[in-house]
């Protein structure tokens, strides 16, 4: 151990720069993995906290087949009657907006709040509060939490299905402060049911068991009881189980982040391997001397691994910081969903798991990356080394060409698999399994193409043109002779370019589809009193009076409505149901056809996710949970529609009313009479001043709104792209610096035969520039292929089909940024090269 400390660990102190670099590289790789852990724990902890603050002592909760009023009064009494139940607490729980009013504090912006309905049975959760059942039933006044009370004025209003309700007489109740940071409005249960269109149903029931009753047993008993009582699909959940919709949020973010973090970690591993190889190579003589003196090879391997493990640990800890930094923006964008869908704010938690994962990943990846080089170093020829004639491993040109060909073949094989994954609509379960794997293998093969093609291309470029400048020729020679390192830098830069370009192109493609669909099918203006994005669950609906007045405005022909709701009550069987008074039936069809008559007669159009998971094809019967129990509906067609992860159903307006009743709309489309312009109509609606919160959007503005939503969802990719740029900065910097350390002698020799400091600097920067230019050029080509592969699998993975539309400007822009990053990263290594002390560098040993 003493020897290991002497030979290996002391190097960390002697070579602080290198140690810091290696640690940073590992840290960068670990960051993304850590961010994944941080995000999942933050989400689940935040959800759990939110659940706990509402559930109090109740360990169980019962929910119905639809989130809005899915639990019937019969079910509530059955629960209360079940043996072992101390109390059953029915609640209406949803989200809406509060307008703070003129004299509210803050910017007067609407406040997103949780809206609750409860009766005296709430004492089962909060303890005795002297609630009088009779008196409470007569009440209609609201209670608000302090978090809200402090921000609103006396003229504040809360939005409901029945329009705005003043909060002037609202009672301030400190018991509500723990929920949603105090942003809560509570109503007596009956009033909440009325205001939010729940009929006599409630959204959920918390169950507190009698003393000494086992929770698991009670859960089973409740399930049996509810099954007997009626055939509604009631479900008894752990009180802290996340609301089913949260699963949709996770499904949106996690797969993507995992893929990217795996790739980033791969690049990190290559960099660690790179730097370990370098440091071992630099140590060849030392190794040889130790060998000649009789040191064992095990000693060297163990020593190297110990050294690397220390670096990996430090890197892992850096990864925690980096991971939190990455998690912050992503969680903010996740919070956008969770708050709008369930009124759950997300706080970033970096629990002990994050530390453990960071350490394991940091140490694990570094050690794994170091094993190969360490074992290779053991096999060096001691005699040759001491005669200072160490040979460098050269990759023969033939070999690298063959590798490139192999990689290209693999890319095409991957593309083939992507193609197979989407044949016949991609509706088979095996196709959904195949698609991500096919895309991932195409990506990996493409990375390999990038790594192998760039050195070869550099050699071609070197030969094709007559380079006059000595420093340029030397730069070429250096890059060509160290293809692996060249490849690593190229991959780092190319990857960042490709992710940026593909994200921008995908955005352009989605925008194009949205624009095309809306301009072809939508007439009139969209009216709402809330930003419609992610507001599916919001109770802040259009006021019935406003709706009536809208229809009576001059120039208005008619109003088209849409209704959206979530049915199902567990993460796996959630479906989004939609219906429109004027269905376009213009979606991209995966199977079946859009027969309007049959659709109106009750057949339904489903998304590809639902078709795949339930094995449904046109002509089959779909089972849908409704407040009246499950119903069977014939499938008319499968559309490429990715809403709810492809688990969606479109039914006729009639059917929607029959099955789920009518609720107030979030948005309506107001269509003009013949001869009235959309713009004029929009003016008319706004000038009528029907509601201060009314938003009116023409077709172009709707296109902008939806494009904005898409861009927002793609924002996390942009964050990742920026992360990758930082990675490539580190990659280029570390590679050039490490190579520079190794080439110090060489720099000395070059200076001795007459190279000026400026030329030395230029040589190093030219190397980076060449790699960046050729690397981004190859990446540009490669990203076109990758984009093609992505578009092949999106109908299967996301559910939407998108056309091959590219954003060439983004390509140029990201390539320029990548080249700039490479040049920036080369500045310091170039500076160091220029400052080399000739005599010091040449002195032997």
């Amino acid at each position: 151990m003493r020897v290991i400390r002497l030979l290996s660990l002391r190097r960390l102190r002697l070579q602080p720069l290198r140690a810091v670099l290696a640690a940073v590289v590992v840290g960068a790789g670990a960051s993304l993995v850590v961010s994944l852990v941080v995000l999942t724990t933050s989400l689940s902890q935040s959800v759990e906290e939110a659940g706990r603050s509402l559930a109090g002592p109740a360990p169980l909760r019962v929910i119905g087949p639809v989130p809005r009023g899915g639990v019937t009064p019969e079910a509530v009494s059955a629960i209360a009657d079940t043996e072992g139940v101390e109390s059953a607490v029915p609640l209406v729980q949803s989200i809406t907006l509060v307008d703070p009013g003129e004299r509210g504090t803050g910017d007067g912006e609407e406040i997103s709040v949780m809206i609750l309905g409860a009766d005296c049975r709430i004492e089962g959760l909060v303890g005795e509060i002297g609630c009088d059942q009779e008196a409470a039933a007569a009440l209609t006044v609201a209670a608000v939490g302090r978090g809200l009370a402090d921000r609103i004025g006396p003229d504040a209003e809360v939005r409901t299905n029945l329009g705005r309700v003043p909060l002037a007489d609202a009672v301030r109740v400190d018991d509500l402060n723990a929920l949603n940071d105090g942003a809560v409005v509570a109503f007596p249960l009956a009033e909440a049911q009325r205001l939010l269109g729940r009929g006599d149903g409630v959204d959920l029931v918390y169950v507190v068991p009698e003393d000494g009753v086992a929770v698991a047993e009670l859960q089973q008993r409740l399930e049996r009881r509810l099954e007997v009582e009626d055939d509604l699909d009631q479900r008894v959940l752990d009180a802290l189980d996340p609301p089913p919709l949260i699963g949709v949020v996770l499904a949106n973010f996690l797969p993507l982040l995992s893929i990217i973090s795996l790739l980033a970690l791969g690049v990190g591993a290559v960099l660690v391997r790179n730097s370990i190889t370098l440091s071992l190579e630099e140590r060849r003589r030392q190794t040889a001397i130790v060998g000649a003196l009789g040191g064992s090879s095990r000693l060297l391997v163990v020593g190297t691994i110990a050294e690397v493990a220390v670096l990996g640990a430090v890197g892992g800890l850096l990864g925690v910081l980096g991971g939190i930094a990455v998690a912050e923006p992503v969680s903010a964008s996740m919070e956008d969903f969770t708050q709008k869908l369930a009124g759950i704010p997300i706080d970033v938690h970096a629990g002990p798991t994050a530390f453990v994962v960071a350490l394991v990943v940091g140490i694990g990846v570094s050690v794994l990356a170091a094993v190969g080089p360490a074992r290779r170093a053991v096999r060096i020829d001691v005699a040759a080394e001491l005669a200072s004639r160490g040979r460098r491993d050269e990759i023969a040109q033939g070999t690298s060409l063959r590798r490139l060909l192999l990689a290209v073949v693999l890319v095409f094989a991957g593309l083939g698999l992507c193609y197979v994954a989407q044949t016949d609509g991609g509706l088979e379960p095996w196709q959904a399994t195949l698609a991500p794997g096919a895309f991932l293998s195409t990506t990996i093969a493409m990375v390999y193409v990038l790594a192998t093609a760039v050195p070869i291309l550099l050699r071609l470029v070197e030969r094709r043109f007559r380079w006059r400048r000595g420093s340029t020729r030397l730069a070429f020679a250096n890059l060509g002779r160290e293809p692996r390192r060249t490849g690593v830098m190229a991959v780092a830069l190319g990857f960042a370019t490709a992710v940026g370009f593909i994200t921008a192109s995908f955005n352009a493609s989605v925008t194009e589809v949205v624009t095309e669909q809306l301009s072809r099918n939508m007439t009139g203006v969209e009216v709402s009193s809330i930003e419609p994005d992610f507001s599916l669950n919001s109770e802040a609906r259009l006021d019935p009076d406003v709706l009536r007045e809208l229809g009576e405005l001059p120039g208005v022909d008619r109003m088209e409505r849409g209704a959206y709701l979530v049915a199902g009550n567990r993460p796996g069987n959630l479906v989004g149901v939609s219906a429109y008074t004027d269905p376009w039936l213009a979606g991209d069809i995966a199977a079946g056809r859009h027969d309007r008559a049959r659709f109106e007669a009750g057949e339904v159009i489903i998304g590809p996710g639902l078709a795949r998971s339930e094995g449904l094809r046109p002509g089959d019967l779909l089972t849908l949970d409704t407040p009246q129990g499950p119903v069977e509906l014939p499938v008319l067609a499968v559309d490429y529609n990715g809403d709810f992860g492809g688990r969606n159903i479109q039914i006729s307006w009639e059917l929607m009313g029959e099955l789920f009743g009518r609720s107030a709309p979030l948005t309506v489309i107001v269509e003009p009479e013949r001869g009235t312009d959309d713009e004029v109509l929009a003016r008319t609606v706004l000038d009528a001043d029907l509601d201060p919160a009314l938003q009116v959007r023409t077709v172009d503005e709707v296109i902008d709104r939806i494009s904005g939503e898409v861009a927002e969802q793609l924002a996390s990719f942009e964050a990742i792209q920026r992360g990758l740029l930082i990675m490539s900065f580190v990659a280029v910097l570390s590679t050039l610096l490490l190579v520079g350390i190794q080439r110090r002698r060489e720099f000395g020799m070059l200076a001795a035969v007459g190279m000026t400091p400026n030329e030395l600097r230029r040589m190093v920067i030219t190397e980076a520039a060449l790699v960046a230019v050729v690397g981004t050029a190859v990446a540009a080509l490669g990203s076109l292929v990758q984009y093609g592969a992505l578009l092949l699998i999106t109908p299967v993975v996301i559910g939407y089909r998108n056309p091959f539309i590219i954003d060439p400007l983004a390509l140029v822009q990201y390539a320029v940024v990548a080249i700039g990053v490479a040049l920036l990263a080369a500045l310091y290594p170039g500076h160091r090269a220029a400052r080399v002390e000739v005599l010091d560098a040449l002195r032997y040993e």
Partner: protein
Amino acid sequence: MAALLRFEGVSKRYSAGAREVVALDGVDLTIDAGELVALVGRSGSGKSTLLHLAGGLDTADSGRVLLDKRDVGSLSIAERSKLRRREIGFVFQFFHLIPTLTVVENVELPLLLDGAKRGDRGRELIERVGIGPRADHLPGELSGGELQRAAIARALVARPRLLLADEPTGNLDSANGEEVLQLLRDEVRTEGTALLMVTHDADATVRADRSHTLTDGHIS
């Protein structure tokens, strides 16, 4: 004939920790164009230091080093680099070839740095020093004698007027050493280059035009 290289009272001190080492102490020396001068002395007597000052790899603490009446010490680093590239050739004991470049690329390096077109000069010299078949090999594949021949070819490729050789045979066996010395002498005569060579070889001293001895930084 005009003096090509001139040392005027040149001193150089090194401080190694608290201890100060006087490597050169008031050295005067003149070398004319085309002259062949041998420099001998015990290890540590300042021979290498003198060569480094002559080649502008280092600067004197006092006195002047003149190359063609130009004060080498007053030139900028870049100017000194260009001087080495065009007018001075170096041959080191440890060859100092760039391991990533082939022999011919190494030899042509000074021309390359000047942005010259690729010509025949490099290969011609490689043929002349007798390692023609090795031209496209990497240094790692050559023997010590071959490496030093390549280094000599590189030192001469830009037709310098002064060649500085620091124990060029110090790392070679005697047979190889003898051959390399012979070659060096022949080549400087052919090219008309002046040679200042540090050597231990008595024979080499005899065949030089002049020979100087350094003792503790003093020249005689």
